[in-house]
């Protein structure tokens, strides 16, 4: 049951209605049942994994809080980390590691016997594992008080809007809100509804529409031209943003209608002026998780430049692996690490150079140039993220850097299936997307619900119409979210 399915359009209103109708004490119990039902609609057979992870982290957190003995506390934390990461590793990385080792032995002339298990990747495992670990680490650090009610803690881990693709919530933000019994609030309803509609618009109208043209290039790497690769990669940058931020918007909207405010996960990432800033705007919940639980414990930037570079590279390599068990993701992460390291090391020199040339680093031209460069670098890295395999990525790279475009502009567009109608539609959709994102930002600002909010009701009505028409055009709502595979 994905967000963009008919089942969810029946499930969610029923849950929201029950949430407001039920007595205070039973609201959270209903949410827990609904969350597990939601999860079991995906993979009922793997529900034991989420139950097991929840139970182990809950027991560990109680032992950690009740014990003053440092050794026991540390042992408990280590055991939880080993078990949770062990489960994640087994289901997500075992075949990848086994395949890589086999490939390496074959490369050196050996004849290894392949060990590949028939494993199904549990939906959302990376998300809920990180959420449970943030809770246990926070309890260990004394930042969060241990939750004594197992079932309530289970709700924190499995809260359905953010269960399968984030945002990766922190206990300090989500747990107190889940404990409150929220009443129906018109303002929350309108704002949550807007978030949901914008999310659906991003996913169904933009991401799914653009995906067709992106796939036509990436699924036929051998026949792609350099120009086609550039267009498809730039379109993929839009597609993945709409796909993932669309999911997040729907999740935030679902929770907001019930009075629960989830953390912001995207903040206009393609307006960033550096790769470093990009990561403070893209998948914020994951970036901040890595910062708080990996980068800072590794020493952050407190132990000299060399150690800082090492720490940044570790974080981005792990981030790449988190996104998927394939070398393409590792390279994607490494590229971001390298971009960030070079960016940080040359930041002062570049600014000094600008000063010597008589430019201000805050001038519009320089800001736009930096944004353009950031989009180029990030898009280049997306090539590895989207490529179906390392061999495909190599083919695409070779074609991209070969001399000449390969074929003409018109031929490239027609090979991608881009007619004039679809080009106009893509441009209009992307421009509308830009405005929609900005309008949501206005609505989130403290005084955003002033004079014109009601004037916008019609715009949202039009979006609904657009949404229905997009469904008619695509005949079904079958496009799954890219981030589900992580």
């Amino acid at each position: 049951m994905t967000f963009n399915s008919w089942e969810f359009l029946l499930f969610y209103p029923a849950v929201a209605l029950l949430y407001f109708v039920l007595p205070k004490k039973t609201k959270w119990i209903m949410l827990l049942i609904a969350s597990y039902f939601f999860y079991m609609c995906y993979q009922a057979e793997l529900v034991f994994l989420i139950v097991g992870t929840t139970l182990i982290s809950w027991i560990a957190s109680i032992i950690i809080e009740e014990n003053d003995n440092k050794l026991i506390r540390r042992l408990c934390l280590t055991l939880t980390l080993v078990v949770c990461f062990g489960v994640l590793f087994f289901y997500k990385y075992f075949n990848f590691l086994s395949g890589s080792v086999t490939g390496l032995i074959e490369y050196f002339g050996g004849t290894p016997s392949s060990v590949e298990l028939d494993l199904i990747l549990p939906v959302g495992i990376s998300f809920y594992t990180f959420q449970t670990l943030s809770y246990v680490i926070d309890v260990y650090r004394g930042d969060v008080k241990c939750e004594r009610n197992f079932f309530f803690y289970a709700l924190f881990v499995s809260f359905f809007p953010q269960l399968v693709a984030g945002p990766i919530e922190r206990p300090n933000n989500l747990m107190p809100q889940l404990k409150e019994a929220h009443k129906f609030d018109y303002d929350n309803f309108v704002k949550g509804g807007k978030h949901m509609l914008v999310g659906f618009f991003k996913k169904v109208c933009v991401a799914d529409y653009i995906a067709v043209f992106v796939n036509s290039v990436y699924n036929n790497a051998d026949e792609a031209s350099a120009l086609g690769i550039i267009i498809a990669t730039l379109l993929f940058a839009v597609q993945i943003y709409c796909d993932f931020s669309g999911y997040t918007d729907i999740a935030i909207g679902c929770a907001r209608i019930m009075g629960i405010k989830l953390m912001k996960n995207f903040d206009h990432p393609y307006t960033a002026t550096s790769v470093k800033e990009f990561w403070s705007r893209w998948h914020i919940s994951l970036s901040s998780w890595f910062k708080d639980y990996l980068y800072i414990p590794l020493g952050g930037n407190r132990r000299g430049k060399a150690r800082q570079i090492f720490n940044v590279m570790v974080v981005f390599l792990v981030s790449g692996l988190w996104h998927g068990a394939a070398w393409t993701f590792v390279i994607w992460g490494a590229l971001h690490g390298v971009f960030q390291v070079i960016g940080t090391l040359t930041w002062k020199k570049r600014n000094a150079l600008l000063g010597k040339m008589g430019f201000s680093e805050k001038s519009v031209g320089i800001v736009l140039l930096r944004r353009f460069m950031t989009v180029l670098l990030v898009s280049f890295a997306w090539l590895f993220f989207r490529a179906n395999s390392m061999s495909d990525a190599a083919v695409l790279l070779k074609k991209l850097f070969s001399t000449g475009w390969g074929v003409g502009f018109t031929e490239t567009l027609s090979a991608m299936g881009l007619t004039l109608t679809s080009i106009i539609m893509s441009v209009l959709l992307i421009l509308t997307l830009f405005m929609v994102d900005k309008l949501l930002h206005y609505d989130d600002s403290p005084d955003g619900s002033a004079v014109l909010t009601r004037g916008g009701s019609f715009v949202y009505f039009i979006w609904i119409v657009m949404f229905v028409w997009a469904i008619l055009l695509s005949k079904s709502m079958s496009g799954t979210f890219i981030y589900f595979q992580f």
Partner: protein
Amino acid sequence: MLDLTFYKDVFIVLILASALVLHSGAAACGFFVKKVELSKILNTGLTVLNILLHLFLIGFMMYRGVRLDEAVLVILISVFFHTLIYFVIHTLNEHRKKEGGDEA
């Protein structure tokens, strides 16, 4: 390569333009009409008219046998311009609020 035909139908273009005029009016009400009650009534009235006009537009396109992808494009053009008008007026409003704040 130009495979569109809807724009040759003057009625579709006229309905679309009328909808945009109505939307501009509805959005401008919130911006220019100082009396809140009057602004609300005007806004609601124009919005209802606009919705009816769009329903008529969809029906009209079905009657004329407009291709589905073209019909989606017509609605998308409407979405784009409606959002653009709302966006411009909302941005102006944000600036007005900021200037008001600065003066204060």
